[in-house]
């Protein structure tokens, strides 16, 4: 009888129930979309920010010390301290190796440009690096992925271009060098000819340098197997108090805190793990990028949470109005049920089940609609699909239950106070 009454009430009040379902659909779809975006936005924002370059640099510990103490970026004690090239691929073996998206070694050097006699700065790197790791994982990385903003005339170097270079546009312009030209560089009695494959515009002091294969600079500088620094782009989690405490000194953490910190992709934890595999290396976050990532991510998350809360409150208010209106309209019928012997809780249960069933239908539709919205947001804002988080189903179900319940409170109060005598005798 109970479900017969429920079914017939739902059918009879279909326009009102549709309005309630529609309200739930709007609220749930917005909440679902926002939460899915919120949970998936960390990686998306990080990937978006990756265009601004690496967020971690690794240098020799002595060079880093000179830089920290005296602000020196070149000279004795800085330029003569090197990392080992054969450690670089170990970056992918750390606990958070999967979060290391791209990296490239840098070796700074200099040589004389024979055509003009000018001493020019060299940057040796892996423009592109394709390798197979010990784990069998294929690796595609290199500086090209870390300099996405470069405007390149001609072509980027690839990992097989051993006697080609790219030249910064200022240097190229000053020396009247064009794409396809050959240049001769000499240093320490070593003389090598290179073809200019591309001219790049960095917008910084790199525009006066020559970019070439790491092995070529090592040969010119007689620094085989050495690199000055490594630029790393990693997906990180925004810092919190624990991360900030660990960044000061990981040894200050309790064992539980250490485990939590180590197993979370904080930039400090990733730096710590990088130092474990790079001999004599000190990894430091590029604060501007790392902090921007954290700030943007936190603000985006806050915005999503606010939208979810506001849409839930809006839904609760709308549901409240609709249910209260429906109950007032049905007060004679519900008063009659009381007169026939229904307890208050039985009447409340009847109304709540009606509303919950309507909410459930609206919730299911809203959930799938929300997934669609999330994908639209993903495609529009981040150019990729948002991964659907299973936990959103549970969160949305809990929100839906409480929003519907909260929306029903005025109607429940009205029902509890409803006296059959007031509605059955028309007083």
């Amino acid at each position, binding site marked *: *009888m*109970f479900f*017969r*009454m429920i079914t*017939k*009430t739902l*059918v*009879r009040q279909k326009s009102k129930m549709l309005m309630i379902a529609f309200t739930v659909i709007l609220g749930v779809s917005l909440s679902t979309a926002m939460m899915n975006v919120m949970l998936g936005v960390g990686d998306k924002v990080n990937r978006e920010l990756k265009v601004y370059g690496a967020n971690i640099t690794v240098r020799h510990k002595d060079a880093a010390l000179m830089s920290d103490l005296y602000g020196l970026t070149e000279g004795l004690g800085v330029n003569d301290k090197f990392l080992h090239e054969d450690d670089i691929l170990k970056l992918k073996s750390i606990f958070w190796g999967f979060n290391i998206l791209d990296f490239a070694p840098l070796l700074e050097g200099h040589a004389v440009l024979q055509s003009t006699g000018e001493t020019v700065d060299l940057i040796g790197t892996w423009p592109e690096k394709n390798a197979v790791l010990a784990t069998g994982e294929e690796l595609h990385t290199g500086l090209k992925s870390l300099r996405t903003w470069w405007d390149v005339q001609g072509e980027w170097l690839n990992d097989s271009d051993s006697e080609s270079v790219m030249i910064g546009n200022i240097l190229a312009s000053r020396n009247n060098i064009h794409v396809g030209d050959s240049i001769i560089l000499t240093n320490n009695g070593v003389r090598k000819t290179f073809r200019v494959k591309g001219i790049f515009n960095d917008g910084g002091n790199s525009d006066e340098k020559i970019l070439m294969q790491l092995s070529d600079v090592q040969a010119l500088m007689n620094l085989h197997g050495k690199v000055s620094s490594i630029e790393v782009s990693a997906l990180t989690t925004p810092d919190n108090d624990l991360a900030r405490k660990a960044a000061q000194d990981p040894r200050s953490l309790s064992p539980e805190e250490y485990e939590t910190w180590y197993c979370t992709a904080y930039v400090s934890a990733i730096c710590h793990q990088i130092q474990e595999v790079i001999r004599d290396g000190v990894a430091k976050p590029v604060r501007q990028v790392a902090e921007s990532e954290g700030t943007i991510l936190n603000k985006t998350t806050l915005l999503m949470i606010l939208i979810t809360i506001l849409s839930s409150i809006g839904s609760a208010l709308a549901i409240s109005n609709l249910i209260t209106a429906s109950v007032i309209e049905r007060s*004679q*019928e519900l008063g*009659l*049920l*009381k*007169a*026939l*012997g*229904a*307890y*208050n809780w*039985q009447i409340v249960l009847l109304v709540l089940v009606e509303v919950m069933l309507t909410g459930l239908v609206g919730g299911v539709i809203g959930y799938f609609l929300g997934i669609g919205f999330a994908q639209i947001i993903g495609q529009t804002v981040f150019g990729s699909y948002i991964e659907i988080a299973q936990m959103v189903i549970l969160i949305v179900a809990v929100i839906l239950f409480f929003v519907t319940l909260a929306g029903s409170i005025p109607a429940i109060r009205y029902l509890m106070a409803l*006296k*059959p*005598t007031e509605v*059955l*005798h*028309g007083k």
Partner: protein
Amino acid sequence: MKILELKNVSKIYGELKALADINLSVNAGDWLSIMGPSGSGKTTMINIIGCMDTPSTGSVILDGVDISKENASSLTRIRRDKIGLIFQQFHLISYLTAVENVMVAQYYHSMPDESEAMEALEKVGLKDRARHLPAQLSGGEQQRVCIARALINSPKILLGDEPTGNLDEENEGIVVDLFRRLHSEGVTIIIVTHDPEVGDVAQRKIILEHGKIIDDIDQRATFGEALKLRA
């Protein structure tokens, strides 16, 4: 045997005394009509007897239980078990069929039983209209469904608030005949009515005015005659 006893019952709303020191006894199997002008306290009295309201002072003994001191939940249980209610506006649930309307009262009393509900409808002559919605029934038919619903749980008292107030003469006759038959089967009937003809067919009639019983008329002498006249 007394089924209902009101002792010094008053109901006061602010300055207004809707019922003033009412004393009334009803025996099991009696047919009582309550009459009086508007505002005389008829509905207040029926609300108190029907456990939908409580008196301000005095006591109401229903089937041996003083209901004047009971809380809302107990009153609901007592009403469900002992009272069958009939309303002037019928108050059938519009989206349920006649038999389902009867079954609702069963559902809130114990367990719905469709065959029992059909029997109740047969008793009021509406078995063939059992699957119709209230909107598909005439006023008289709706009131008979209401009576079947009131009777389905075998109440101690059948309580009617202007049960013929919305009916034409023909349907009024049908409903009164139904009351007569129920009375002959031993059902206790208390009816509030404006209609002197309906009031006259009861065994006993009380007249209310300004919340007081101003007349208590034993109609047993003319009871059979009035029924014959109606028949």
